[in-house]
C-alpha cells in the first residue's frame, strides 16, 4: 500500500529568501528616511550659518561706516558661534567666523572704502554618508563698505 501525502507551502529556502528581501527593502527605506532627515538638518544649519555670517558682516560694516580704520586680526580659532544645540543647551555644531578687511585698491582720499571678506566654517560630521571626516563646510561673503564723512 502506498500513501501519497501532498503538502502545499513554502520551503525553508523560499521563506528565508522572502525574509531577506523584506529586510533589505525595509532597511533601505529607513536608511533613506534617516538620510533625508539629516540632509534637512544640514540645510537648517546652513541657514543658521548664513544668518550668523550676515550679523558678523553687518557688525564690521558698521565699524567701517562710522570711521574705524584699525582692525584687530582674527585669532586662529576665529569667533565662535553655536549653529546647533541639543535639548540641554549644549553646542553640538559650532561655527567659526573670520574676516579680512582691506582698503579697496581704488579707494580715494574723500571716498574711502574697504573690501570686507568674511567667511564661516563648520564641521560636516553629522551627515550619514559623509565618509570624509573633518571636512569643513564654508560660506563666504565679499562686500564693500564706504566710510561716512559727516561734518
Amino acid at each position, binding site marked *: *500500500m502506498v500513501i501519497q*501525502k*501532498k*503538502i502545499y507551502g513554502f520551503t525553508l529556502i523560499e521563506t528565508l529568501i522572502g525574509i531577506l528581501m523584506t529586510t533589505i527593502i525595509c532597511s533601505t527605506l529607513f536608511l533613506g528616511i534617516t538620510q533625508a532627515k539629516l540632509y534637512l538638518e544640514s540645510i537648517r544649519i546652513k541657514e543658521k550659518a548664513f544668518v550668523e555670517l550676515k550679523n558678523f558682516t553687518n557688525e564690521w560694516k558698521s565699524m567701517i*561706516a562710522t570711521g*574705524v580704520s584699525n582692525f584687530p586680526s582674527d585669532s586662529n580659532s576665529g*569667533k565662535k558661534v553655536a549653529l546647533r544645540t541639543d535639548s540641554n543647551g549644549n553646542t553640538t555644531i559650532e561655527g567659526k567666523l573670520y574676516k579680512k578687511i582691506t582698503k579697496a585698491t581704488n579707494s580715494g582720499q574723500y571716498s574711502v572704502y574697504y573690501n570686507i571678506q568674511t567667511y564661516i566654517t563648520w564641521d560636516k560630521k553629522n551627515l550619514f554618508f559623509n565618509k570624509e571626516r573633518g571636512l569643513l563646510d564654508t560660506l563666504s561673503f565679499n562686500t564693500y563698505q564706504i566710510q*561716512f564723512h559727516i*561734518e
Partner: protein
Amino acid sequence: MKKYIHIKTNGFTLVESLVSILIVSSISFSMFFAFYQIQKNLVNEDYKSDMINYGNRVLDDMENEIMKSYQLVKINQSLSNTTLELYYSNTQNKIKYLVSLENGIKKNDGESNRYTPIDIYNPKDDENRYKYKITNFEISQPTLTAGDIWSYEANMARYASYEIKLEIDLYNYPNDRVIETLEFNRRVFSPAKFIYNKNTNNA
C-alpha cells in the same frame, strides 16, 4: 493489487492559523507604531519649518525698517505686549510693530490704525493645544564684549546698532511638552540713526 490512499491536507491546522495570526498581529502593530511615530515627527517638523520661516520673515522685515529709521522707541505695554515705533527723517509717518507673545508680531504701516500680521501665526491647533509660542522678544543696543574695539568710532557704531532676539518654543505633538526652543538673532546697523546721532552731537 496495490491500493492507493490519497490524503489531501487542503486546510490550515489550528497551530498554523494561530501562528499566522500572531505574525500578522506583530507586523500590523509594528507598522501602526512606525506610522504613528512618522506622523508625529512629520507634524513636529512641519511646525518647526513654519516657525523657522516665520522668525526669519518677521526679523528680516524689522531689520529692513530699522535700517531706514533714525529713531526707535520701545514701549512695554504689558508683560506679553511690546510696541516698537520707528521714525523716519523723510516722512511724518511712523511704522509700528506690536509684538505679542500670544498673537504674534503685527505691523502698522502708519496709514491707518490697523495692525496686520506680517505672517500667519496660529499657535494652537483645533483641539486648543499649543503648537508653538513666542516666549521672548528683546531689542537692545549691542553691549561691549571681550575682543571688541573700544574707540569713539566703534562706540558710535554700537549706538547706531541694535541686537534683536526672538525665542519661540516648539511643543511636542500631541502632548503639550516643549521639545525645542528656536532662537533667532539679528544685528542691525542703522545709517540713518548714525547720521542723526552725529548731527545731534555736532549741534
